[in-house]
């Protein structure tokens, strides 16, 4: 039976089995077996978080019971399971608050007052919650509930209230609870806007077994999307300053857009999980890479959002304005939809993060896309568009035209997307200078790959979508099942170390990297920047970093960087505020009169005292640990305990660390350190030394800060960098000279210190998070060695320890007090090994 013919089966003709949601024992066992495999798959690839795995186990166990319950019990059971899921993920107290607030809002929708009065009451409650979210009113619950509460209610309440007004079928309590607290939501603040009417209408509207099987297919597809996303995220993404030739530009454009696979993957997982409980929800995305026009793109990507906008804004506007004429009404309604999309994007961010988001690229992006969709819509209104029942027939010419249109749309969207996601407009414009770079054969790679995907994707297939599985042809149904099973088996097989390691080290490393969700090298760098500055790009996009940030408490550490540092003139720009003290949740932070987080020392050391100045950034300063807990203080104590009966009676380590400082700023800090007549300079490097050096140079060039080092200015001239140039361009031009710039910094530290008789020690301390952060370590060690430093490389200091035992928090990769003790122990061993070289006087 063809799809078209099969789809003609009336919904009124549903079999008894289908209506009662029954499933045979064998089919039930088949579904359970697949769910077990899926659980293994989720675990093997560490899909999303540990919390999601727990939730999946709860959902699959819940399914095992749910499938055998009488139909009338199932919705209440699902509601209870969803509430339990919130408890499992968020803990009992947070769950109780969240459900309590939710019940108040649902209850307000049903109070026996006029619709307008209820709306007014809801707005009042939302207003109070908004004030609390913004921090203007106190609240007794944890910050952690906001993102989930927001994702459950910020859009769904609008749809629910809209449908209450227009839908004649009364809602049951179970339906309302199931709709708002639906199970997967507990783990996913990024959640599709599910239509309430569809949620109710499609409940067990097909053969139960086939709905469940469909759910498994969706979840497996979701996992595939998420794995592909990791390939893009880890291996293909580039920073704008790395785009220096046309091949990079195409890679940047494509990878930037393909990061959206994460959203589509998560939505597939969510909808698939809901299918296990009988909610046969329609597709959330429809092969959006194959959009052949801007209206087509809008229809294919995030379909639930489009339908939400259509229902709540588009149709009401167009129907109200139809007297103006269809075309005028259509234009106004479409522009209104895009205006509201922009606004609701900011509104969404407010509920998730607590701050409003107003960025010029957002406005421009939605305006441009809106205008393009309006133009396309008017064209379609006038000329129509090709539609077909079942499989369309296309000649070669039609096929070529379709491929050309799809290809052009894809690249246009990529460009528009890159504009939208760029950190700033100057950064985006600077990137296009890459077109003047070398045209190598690699420039064809992505255009060719994309063309191949589009050609294959344009081969006609069944065009009818969201057909009930029971109305598909038996062949298509079996094919889908087999593909799902084979896909799961393949991925599980590949994920086994004994299997993927057989294909060589590179393949093994590649597969291994895809098996865990971690931050990419670019996001790791952004995370580091985010400790000390506000990150716009993190604020705006639903990246993994965004999720890490979302969990970060607003008053993390009870102090922000701005309170700890002050701006000063000169090349270093910032220093710690002298004679400052504050108590934080991790202990007291005390800054001495010289602006060091340390005890008070005399400027001139006593004759029998060995003094070393420790240069570095937040790690040295002891970000997130109390006074006396940073490794510098621990080492100093130990030296005084264990070595004070030797050559020196006393040891003093001066903590010169300043959060956010980068290698070039250490030139200034070293000059300051030399005023304290140290016997040694301990330069602490913490990874990505070359990139961080260039970052800082780019910053000072853009800000026109005077660079007082002739060697550096000569390098800038060589790279054709001039004061005031935008940061992205500076980075592009300086990148080929990165090694030379860092070498200059290191050599100057060594030569200046030696001139004052101080030994120079270069200590490498890694970030707690292993991975891309260490990719420049080898080069930095070589540069430090060449410059003449004594090297103590502690790159494996955290090895063998669980990351959560060593770091402050998922959103803050600094070591905690235990991490500092580890560092101190290892550093002591390193110092001891080279004691004669380091602990000596210049005249020895």
């Amino acid at each position, binding site marked *: 039976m063809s799809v078209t013919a099969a789809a003609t089966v009336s919904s009124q003709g549903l079999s008894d089995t289908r209506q009662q949601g029954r499933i045979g024992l064998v089919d039930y066992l088949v579904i359970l077996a697949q769910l077990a495999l899926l659980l293994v798959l989720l675990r093997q690839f560490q899909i999303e978080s540990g919390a999601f795995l727990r939730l999946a186990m709860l959902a699959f166990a819940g399914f095992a019971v749910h499938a055998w319950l009488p139909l009338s019990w199932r919705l209440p059971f699902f509601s209870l399971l969803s509430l339990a899921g919130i408890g499992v993920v968020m803990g009992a107290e947070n769950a109780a608050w969240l459900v309590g607030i939710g019940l108040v809002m649902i209850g307000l929708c049903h109070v026996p007052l006029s619709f307008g009065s209820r709306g007014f009451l809801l707005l009042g409650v939302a207003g109070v919650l908004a004030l609390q979210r913004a921090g203007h009113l106190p609240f007794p619950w944890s910050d952690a509930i906001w993102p989930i509460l927001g994702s459950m209610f910020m859009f769904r309440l609008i749809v629910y209230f809209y449908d209450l007004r*227009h839908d004649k079928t009364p809602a049951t309590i179970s339906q309302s609870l199931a709709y708002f607290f639906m199970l997967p939501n507990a783990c996913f603040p990024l959640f599709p806007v599910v239509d309430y*009417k569809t949620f109710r209408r499609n409940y067990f509207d097909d053969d139960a077994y086939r709905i469940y099987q469909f759910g498994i297919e969706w979840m497996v597809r979701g996992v595939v999307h998420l794995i592909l996303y990791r390939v893009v995220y880890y291996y293909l993404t580039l920073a704008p300053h790395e785009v220096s030739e046309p091949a990079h530009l195409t890679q940047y454009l494509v990878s930037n857009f393909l990061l959206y696979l994460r959203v589509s993957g998560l939505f597939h997982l969510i909808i698939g999980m809901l299918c296990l409980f009988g909610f046969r929800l329609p597709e959330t995305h429809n092969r959006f890479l194959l959009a052949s026009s801007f209206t087509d793109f809008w229809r294919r990507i995030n379909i639930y959002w489009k339908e939400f906008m*259509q*229902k709540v804004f588009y149709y009401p506007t167009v129907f109200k304005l139809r007297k103006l004429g269809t075309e005028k009404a259509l234009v106004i309604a479409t522009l209104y939809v895009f205006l509201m999309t922009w606004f609701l994007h900011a509104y969404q961010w407010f509920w998730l993060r607590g701050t409003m988001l107003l960025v010029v690229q957002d406005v421009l992006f939605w305006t441009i896309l809106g205008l393009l969709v309006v133009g396309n819509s008017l064209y379609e209104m006038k000329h129509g568009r090709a*539609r077909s*029942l079942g499989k369309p027939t296309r000649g070669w010419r039609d096929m070529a035209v379709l491929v050309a249109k799809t290809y052009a749309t894809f690249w246009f969207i990529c460009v528009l997307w890159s504009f939208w996601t760029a950190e700033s407009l100057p950064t985006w414009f600077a990137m296009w200078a890459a077109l003047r770079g070398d045209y190598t054969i690699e420039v064809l790679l992505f255009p060719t790959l994309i063309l191949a995907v589009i050609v294959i994707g344009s081969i006609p297939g069944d*065009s009818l979508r969201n057909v009930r599985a029971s109305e598909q042809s038996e062949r298509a149904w079996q094919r889908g099942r087999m593909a799902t099973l084979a896909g799961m088996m393949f991925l599980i097989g590949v994920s086994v170390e004994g299997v993927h390691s057989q294909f060589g080290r590179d393949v093994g490393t590649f597969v291994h990297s895809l098996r865990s969700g971690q931050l990419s090298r670019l996001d790791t760098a952004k995370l580091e920047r985010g400790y000390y500055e506000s990150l716009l790009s993190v604020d705006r996009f639903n990246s993994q970093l965004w999720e890490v940030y979302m969990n970060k408490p607003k008053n993390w550490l009870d102090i922000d960087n701005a309170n700890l540092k002050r701006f000063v003139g000169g090349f270093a720009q910032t220093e710690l505020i002298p004679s400052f003290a504050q108590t934080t949740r991790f202990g007291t932070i005390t800054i001495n009169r010289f602006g060091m987080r340390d005890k008070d020392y005399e400027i001139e050391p006593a004759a029998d005292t060995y003094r070393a100045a420790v240069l570095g950034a937040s790690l040295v300063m002891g970000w997130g640990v109390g006074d006396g807990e940073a490794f510098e203080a621990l080492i100093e104590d130990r030296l005084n305990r264990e070595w004070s009966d030797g050559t020196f009676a006393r040891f003093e380590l001066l903590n010169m660390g300043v959060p956010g400082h980068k290698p070039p700023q250490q030139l200034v800090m070293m000059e300051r350190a030399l005023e304290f007549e140290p016997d040694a300079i301990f330069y602490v490097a913490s990874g990505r030394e070359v990139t961080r050096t260039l970052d800082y140079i780019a910053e000072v060039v853009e800000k026109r800060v005077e660079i007082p080092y002739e060697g550096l200015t000569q390098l800038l001239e060589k790279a054709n960098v001039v004061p005031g140039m935008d940061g992205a361009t500076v980075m592009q031009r300086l990148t080929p000279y990165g090694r030379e710039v860092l070498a200059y910094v290191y050599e100057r530290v060594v030569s200046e210190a030696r001139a004052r008789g101080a030994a120079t020690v270069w200590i490498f301390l890694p970030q707690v998070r292993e991975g891309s952060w260490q990719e420049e370590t080898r080069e930095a060690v070589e540069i430090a060695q060449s410059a003449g430093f004594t090297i103590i490389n502690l790159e494996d200091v955290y090895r063998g320890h669980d990351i959560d035992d060593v770091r402050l928090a998922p959103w803050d990769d600094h070591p905690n007090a235990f991490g500092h003790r580890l560092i101190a122990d290892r550093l002591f061993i390193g110092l001891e090994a080279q004691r004669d070289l380091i602990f000596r006087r210049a005249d020895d």
Partner: protein
Amino acid sequence: MDANIDFTQAVKGYILEEFLPGENPDDLTEDLPLISGGIIDSIATLKLVLHFEERYGIVLEAHEADKEHLDTIRDIAALLASKVR
């Protein structure tokens, strides 16, 4: 208004002529999902609504422009019939 209007045929005829020229009429059955199946989109829905409003002098509401009321020819015909009555 004539209570015996065959809305089903009228809707089917309009959809075939306006959106699916050249398709086999037998494939366009009364229960074929039009909106959820991706055959008619928001622009086509709008054209369809405006056409029948004009043709039968009826007024449809914005909230009726959804899958519940317009997903199949049977649904559309029922909605039109309810308006005409």
